């Protein structure tokens, strides 16, 4: 799992890490922030440059190396945005419509699948994620153990995955 091979296949690494870096970037700067792709591209370019210039010396894993570059770039981005905001108001961030339509269709499918789950799974999802009660509070309210709460959530997730594949 952890790649320490100095002669790592850069293309493969980039292919694998683009989605992870994208996830982290979007989580940090906002899913609908139109800048996210630019930030991701900058990070990837930076990673390639650093690996090529021999800056990655495999003292840590490639994952940790990329994570460090990613979080630094995000901090810079947020600082830079805060400075800009101090001088002029940012125009409203509009989601990319094509992406939104696709996302929306998938979200609708997931929603309808959740709706089809048995009540014992639905109630856990409702209390835990929608009402944001703690695992212990959910357990108490449903008269089951906290461990059982996690089990039901995980099982619901598995069922969803299966239903979505059908």
């Amino acid at each position, binding site marked *: 799992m952890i790649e320490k091979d100095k002669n790592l296949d850069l293309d493969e690494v980039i292919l694998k890490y683009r989605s*992870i870096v994208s*996830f982290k970037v979007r989580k940090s700067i906002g899913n609908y922030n139109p800048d996210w792709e630019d930030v991701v591209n900058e990070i990837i370019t930076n990673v390639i440059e650093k690996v090529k210039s021999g800056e990655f010396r495999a003292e840590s894993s490639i994952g940790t190396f990329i994570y460090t570059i990613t979080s630094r770039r995000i901090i810079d981005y947020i600082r830079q945005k805060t400075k800009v905001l101090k001088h002029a108001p940012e125009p409203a961030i509009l989601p990319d419509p094509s992406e939104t339509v696709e996302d929306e269709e998938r*979200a609708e499918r997931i929603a309808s699948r959740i709706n089809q789950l048995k009540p014992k799974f639905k109630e856990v*999802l*409702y209390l835990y*994620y929608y009402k944001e009660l703690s695992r212990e509070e959910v357990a108490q309210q449903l008269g089951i153990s906290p461990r059982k709460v996690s089990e039901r*959530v995980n099982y619901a997730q598995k069922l969803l995955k299966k239903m979505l594949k059908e």
Partner: protein
Amino acid sequence: MKKCKFEDAIDNYLLNNLAEAEKEEFEEHYFNCSQCFEKVVARDEMIQVIKAKGARIFRDEYVVEEAKGAAWFEKAWSFFTPRQWAAAAAALALVAVVVFGVLPHYRATSPQFYINEEDTVRGGSVTLISPIIDIKSIPSYFEWKKLGDDLEYKIYIYNQKLLWSASTKENKISLPEEITKLMIAGEKYSWQVKAFSPEGTLIAVSSRVQFKISKTE
């Protein structure tokens, strides 16, 4: 497959329940553990959908827990199909248009009305001139303001009940002797005048004014 020790952090991470250091540790972990990253993505997607569409997905649970009182509304609503509801709404709108929009144009002019001695009306009034306060002797005449020509006035004098009433075309009237004889000093009396048009329609009423005849020394 052995469970990763970080798996339990997935929910707390996505629900923003981790401290900054724990968050960074977990992030670094999923940059290195593709199994955890896959789970994070799948769980994140599920949570996002639940947060965005939860009100609809959990409508039943929602009604049970948060709006028990609204259950009757659901029942009432499901009594008709949406199409029937639309028809009912259209019918109501039509009735409203007829009642408030059309009918007022066909309404007859104000009806003529007749009232008896016990009734009062809101409308034109007759102003009484004399007597309107306590007087020292039994009044020889009663006077009021003239309202117009050719009207007929009807005067009523009350003790506890009606003592006397008479009609005149003048705006004053003298009491007949048999009535003045009945009036006693120290007693309270009241009087009122109603005005009628030549056709006999009541057009104005005075207020009922009380007066007292002081006892002579």
